[in-house]
């Protein structure tokens, strides 16, 4: 066995000045761009309305309000069930494509990633047209068999949409983790007589646990904090929609909205902490990096039929919304009928005529945001897992808490904090596009962080020790050993951050200052406000999906190629 028992690990090197400086720099960044702006808004939760004096009465009110308590438990239930269903979708895809010789693995990985890039508004419209009460499927069911299925009704509808939407979090993190497992482990188990499901359950899955939990905790927290889906399905008794309704409606100075935000943040941090606790005291690292060019297993014909069948079935289900989007983008009128009345390419003509600036901006903003995220993600993961710095976990928790902060709250916080600061020529700091990029980076940092964290957890510290024993400095070790070994995880983190930042709307809407600086999501929003804009909106949505999909596919090719180069592939 190559796993290093936790107890025998040599005493960790204490913090170097460089590490302390790094930690301080990250802390300052988080303080300035996350804690401060959010605190300027959230402090309302602790003040009495009208008098601004400190009070905890608002929290007392929260726990006494039946609606909020019901909303809290609904959110917990929906999040937990979404994790279950997301796992059901993700496990087969991840396992089949990483552990077997599977034709088109990169394509499957890319397609399986697409649901995450569900452009706001258009995505929901497309899903309603397919799965809604009078969507294609229900109209046909009603016609043929005389009954309908409530895919999109109530809490179950939210679970359905959320698990389709967010399962790629598990898929991408789990796939990265599975690729990192040394196949020698599996072979040893096989030699000892273990095979099939037992092998998966006892050896493979436990070793991939960090990746799975990273993805599962993201799904849980994301569903817990997501407001768009419940609102678009008209489900209001969940926590995030309640916070949003409060913050954005008449009671803009109403403390309860911010109390709910505080509860959301605490719940997210607790969920992250629990997932960290689940991994504590165990070691997932392997020293041997699958060298020797072990082959992926070849499936028997029966296995292959079954395997491809499962993959196609899952992909058909999770990609149905995108099929709906595609149909909508070519549709003239689509109303109360299984298919559109007629098809046209006019919407694309309009979008290409007007929207190239949105596309360019999106590519720039999302790439920079994703870049910032992986740099911070690697740094924080390294500090947390490899040093004994006091309070290093706080960096992790603070960064993760960003997941729970409603986009509107962050947007308002940025305006409040940075609008007063002006450049020499009088333009406010908050009106520069870079502010939007920073907001996107902060909002997506948790995604990259979880991915980097999981990747580093799978790398044995003894590899670094070996490098240092051979005379490498710490920074050289990180550069030449740690980061290359984490490459898969880092790329996974970048892709998630990049592609979700590309369709982020809530913070964007608050911070966009001019049409020429606006990203795609803003353009979509503007189109989707009118009946005539539905088609062009869908066309722009398709463009967004293709764009991000192309980037994802490219990064999968890079992963595969780099693994081949290291002799890890087939």
């Amino acid at each position, binding site marked *: 066995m190559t796993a290093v028992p936790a107890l025998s690990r040599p005493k960790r090197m204490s913090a170097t000045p460089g590490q302390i400086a790094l930690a301080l720099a990250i802390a300052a960044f988080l303080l300035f761009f996350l804690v401060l702006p959010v605190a300027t808004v959230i402090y309302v939760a602790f003040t009495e309305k009208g008098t601004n004096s400190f009070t905890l009465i608002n929290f007392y009110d929260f726990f*006494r309000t*039946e*609606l909020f308590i019901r909303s809290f438990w609904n959110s917990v239930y929906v999040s937990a069930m979404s994790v279950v269903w997301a796992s059901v979708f993700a496990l087969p895809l991840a396992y089949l494509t990483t552990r077997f010789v599977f034709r088109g693995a990169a394509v499957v990985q890319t397609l399986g990633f697409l649901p995450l890039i569900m452009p706001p508004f258009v995505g929901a419209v497309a899903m309603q047209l397919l799965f809604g009460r009078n969507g294609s499927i229900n109209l046909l069911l009603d016609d043929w068999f005389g009954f309908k299925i409530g895919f999109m009704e109530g809490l179950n509808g939210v679970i359905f949409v959320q698990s389709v939407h967010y399962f790629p979090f598990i898929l991408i993190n789990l796939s990265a983790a599975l690729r990192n497992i040394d196949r020698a482990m599996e072979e040893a188990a096989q030699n000892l007589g273990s095979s099939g499901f037992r092998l998966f359950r006892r050896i493979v899955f436990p070793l991939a646990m960090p990746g799975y939990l990273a993805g599962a905790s993201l799904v849980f927290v994301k569903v817990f904090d997501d407001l768009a889906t419940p609102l678009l399905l008209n489900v209001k008794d969940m926590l995030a929609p309640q916070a949003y309704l409060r913050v954005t409606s008449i009671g803009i100075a109403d403390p309860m909205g911010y109390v709910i935000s505080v509860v959301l943040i605490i719940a997210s941090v607790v969920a992250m902490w629990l997932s960290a606790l689940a991994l504590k005291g165990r070691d997932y690292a392997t020293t041997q990096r699958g060298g020797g060019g072990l082959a992926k297993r070849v499936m028997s014909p029966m296995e292959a039929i079954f395997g491809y069948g499962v993959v196609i079935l899952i992909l058909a289900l999770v990609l149905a919304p995108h099929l709906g989007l595609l149909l909508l983008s070519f549709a003239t009128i689509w109303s109360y009928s299984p298919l559109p009345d007629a098809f046209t390419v006019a919407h694309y003509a309009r979008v290409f005529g007007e929207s190239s600036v949105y596309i360019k901006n999106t590519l720039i903003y999302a790439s920079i945001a994703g870049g910032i995220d992986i740099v911070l993600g690697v740094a924080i993961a390294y500090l947390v897992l490899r040093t004994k710095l006091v309070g290093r976990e706080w960096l992790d928790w603070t960064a993760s808490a960003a997941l729970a902060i409603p986009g509107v709250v962050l947007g308002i916080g940025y305006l409040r904090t940075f609008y007063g600061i002006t450049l020499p020529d009088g*333009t406010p700091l908050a009106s520069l596009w870079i502010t939007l990029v920073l907001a996107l980076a902060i909002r997506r940092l948790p995604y990259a962080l979880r991915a980097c964290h999981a990747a580093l957890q799978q790398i044995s510290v003894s590899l670094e020790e070996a490098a240092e024993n051979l005379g490498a400095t710490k920074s050289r070790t990180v550069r030449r050993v740690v980061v290359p070994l984490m490459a898969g995880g880092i790329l996974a983190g970048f892709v998630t951050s990049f592609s979700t930042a590309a369709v982020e709307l809530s913070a964007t*809407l608050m911070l966009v200052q001019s049409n020429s600086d606006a990203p795609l999501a803003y353009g979509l929003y503007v189109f989707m406000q009118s009946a005539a804009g539905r088609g062009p909106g869908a066309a722009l949505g398709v463009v967004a999906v293709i764009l991000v999909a192309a980037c994802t596919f490219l990064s999968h090719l890079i992963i595969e190629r780099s693994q081949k180069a290291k002799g890890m592939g087939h």
Partner: protein
Amino acid sequence: MVNRRVALAAALGLSLSTSFATIALAQAPAGKVTVVTSFSKDVTDPIKKAFEKAVPGVTLEVQNRNTNAGVKYVEETKANNQVDLFWASAPDAFEVLKGKKLLTPYKPKATGIPEKIGSYPINDPQGFYFGFAASGYGIMWNDRYAKANKLPEPKDWQDLAKPAFYDHVSIASPARSGTTHLTVETILQGEGWDKGWRTLKEMSGNFRSITERSFGVPEAVNSGQVGVGIVIDFFAFSAQASGFPVKFVYPTVTTVVPANVGIIANPPNKAAAEAFVEFLLSPTGQEVLLDPGIRRLPVNPAVYAKAGADYPNPFTDPRFQKMIGFDVDKSEARTAVVDTLFDQLISFQLDALKGVTKTLHEVDAALAKKPNAQAKAAADEARNLIAAMPVTEAQAASAELRGAFTGGKEKGARQAELESQWANAARENYAKAKTKAEEALKLAR
């Protein structure tokens, strides 16, 4: 050149558009003018194009935000304001901005625009914002959906409470949609507090959904997910223009109110901001509103000559003259209370309300076949329980309740406490009503 044009225009008594161009030239606006708006691209694009053509040298920068976010944005950025104009439908948003001293007064030079539309003043009396288009409220429905589900054509609010419409109607929440708030307030003012709430709750018992965006309702009706929606008129007109199979009707108790534009306090480009207001009110600007993608009602009566025959004209159509006089002050005094009551009694209790409404529809069906006085009495009792309000009209506008929502000194209870009380009262009443309704159903069968 400028003088010659002025002279020429005056001498010939030329159309308003020319004199407007003269004013614009006299002040020589130039550069960029920024407008925060809730209007969609289909509305802003044609107007931007026409404006930039009418006032060369000025570019219109459109920032699209929903009304609430827009108000919040202007408020948050007032210290270093970069925005010239605010442009949206809901008059309340402008009242909020005006109250916070975020608007500049201005006196438009455009002529030909009357004082009132229906019974609603077109411009803010103090000159802080100006109506440029009118919109009425009403009922929109999907024809294919209605045929497939055998829905009758609705004519009035009360129709939507009929059994045929159960689970087929949608509305936006008044707390999130300024225009829906006006619809609710119109019903309350037109029918009176208690009767109005009774109508609202009876309609709500038939609701399929209560959405969070104004546009969520027409979208659901357009795509056929919901049969009937309570919307502002131009949502239906522009959907018709796009080819969707939808129809629209103005109920008898409704109102027509202006959509507005106002100049932000301390605008970076005042001359251009004024030029934009003048443009919107000029005949050229008013004509753009007839564009199929916009379809709003111009405030200049002369412009209707260029509209099609079937275009609703609020200045000549007798329906609009009968519409109720809408009291803005009354509405403003109780905005928060009305919206919160709607949410606590209807939005967040919709399942319970629908449950008892469904049973009552069954009772009615049974009674129609076989009358039964005792069952009818029980059903009426259930209806009264549903209609009961925890707050009277006088209380709704009282300093005490307003204080609870704004944090004033006079407050008797905190907002959260009131909300809990109201929600509990509604829940208990709906549960009791359900028992009564089931009793009535047993008797009726």
